[in-house]
């Protein structure tokens, strides 16, 4: 059996190179893989493209990586009022931003996961989001073409993993994590607890093990603000 369990957070992110495209789960303070983010900050990988709903809460979440100037481009729906280090880097033109409607961000990742080359949507028609995108008239509506978002890695947070990588999530900490797990080439899951194979009832698995490549156990960290 292929071993997915990592002995440490640092080992879990050890091969992430400079320039990697990385999806990072979490929303509203819940479901952020904060331990993995800190491990990546320690490793010091540079020129990262980050794909995440927001851009950090002070030092927390992606904040530390903007503080360290490790991120050159970010794809996000809502950078956020407490994304202090992102806002400083953005004002200094040290980081670029693609702002994407939140549901479209999800679907572009899901398209990548599903092997689809894009889709048409009415969301964003006539707005800044539509600039430079192909427009068509479908089913009576103006639509724009949205392309998939791929990633080399996804850093996600789940509650429980079995040793195969089947995952369950806690409450609304699920958010972006399942779709990112499916979309990236290599998915690294930070989990609160690891249980033996078979200990998660098959009906309760949310992310099937096929999407999960590395598992590391860590006590979740949460940032207020």
């Amino acid at each position: 059996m292929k071993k997915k369990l990592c002995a440490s957070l640092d080992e879990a992110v050890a091969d992430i190179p400079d320039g990697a495209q990385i999806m990072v789960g979490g929303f509203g303070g819940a479901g952020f893989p904060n331990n993995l983010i800190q491990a990546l900050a320690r490793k010091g990988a540079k020129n990262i493209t980050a794909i995440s709903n927001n851009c950090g809460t002070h030092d927390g979440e992606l904040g530390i990586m903007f503080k360290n100037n490790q991120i050159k481009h970010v794809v996000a729906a809502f950078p956020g009022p407490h994304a202090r280090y992102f806002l400083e880097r953005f004002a200094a033109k040290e980081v670029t931003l693609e702002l994407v409607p939140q549901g479209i961000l999800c679907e572009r990742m899901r398209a990548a996961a599903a092997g689809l080359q894009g889709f048409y949507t009415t969301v964003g028609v006539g707005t800044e989001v539509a600039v430079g995108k192909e427009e068509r008239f479908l089913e009576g509506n103006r639509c724009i073409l949205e392309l998939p978002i791929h990633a080399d890695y996804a850093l996600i947070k789940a509650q429980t993993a079995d040793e195969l990588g089947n995952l369950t999530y806690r409450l609304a900490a699920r958010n972006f994590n399942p779709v990112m797990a499916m979309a990236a080439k290599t998915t690294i899951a930070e989990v609160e607890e690891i249980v033996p194979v078979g200990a998660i009832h098959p009906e309760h698995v949310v992310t099937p093990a096929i999407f999960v490549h590395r598992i590391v156990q860590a006590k979740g960290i949460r940032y207020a603000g």
Partner: protein
Amino acid sequence: MPAKTRLTREQIAQRAALELPDGAYVNLGWGIPNLVAGYLPKGITVYFHSENGILGMGPRAKPGEEDFDQVDAMKVPVTLTPGASFFHQADAHLMTRGGHIDVALLGGFQVSEKGDLANWKIPGSQGPGGIGGAMDIAAGARTLIVCMEHTTKDGAPKIVKQCTYPLSALACVDTIITDLAVIDVEPGGLFLREVAPGWTPEEVHELTGAHLIVRRQIPEMSFA
């Protein structure tokens, strides 16, 4: 003459709550809409949706009972109502975009006479702004109600012929509820439905940047 009294944000929310049909699936956006849950009329049950993957959100959690894995779109710990469910963000927005949400209430910076909405960035403000879920919700909700002040802090109309702020979606707004009026957006234009107590249609019109159609005697808003 002393300035006339406008509705408070809470009163706008209270009026907006009357628009919710029994049994509806409802999404509440940032700002005034977030207050609407507190004003549901007796006998009306609705199911609140949150874009981070909750259906069946209840009131805010009491101090000491918060679980920070169970938050609403504004990061506030919430309770659940019986029959609630969790799902991931892609399915949460499939619900908004796919026409599964009966009524969405959003805040607004500007609404045009065609029902275009601008609600994610104020020109000249610092930083890049934030779209969040607003574009998906505006494009997909079956009924979209915008709750906002009728004018800006400087007195400029927020209901305008054409939006000058960055747009969220075209021709998406069905009803506008402000501190001065209830206005329906229809193919023929903006129809004044109600005015705030003590205000006349002419006075409301003067503070509106687009033509308001008055097709009958306009009643004052009621709140119950």
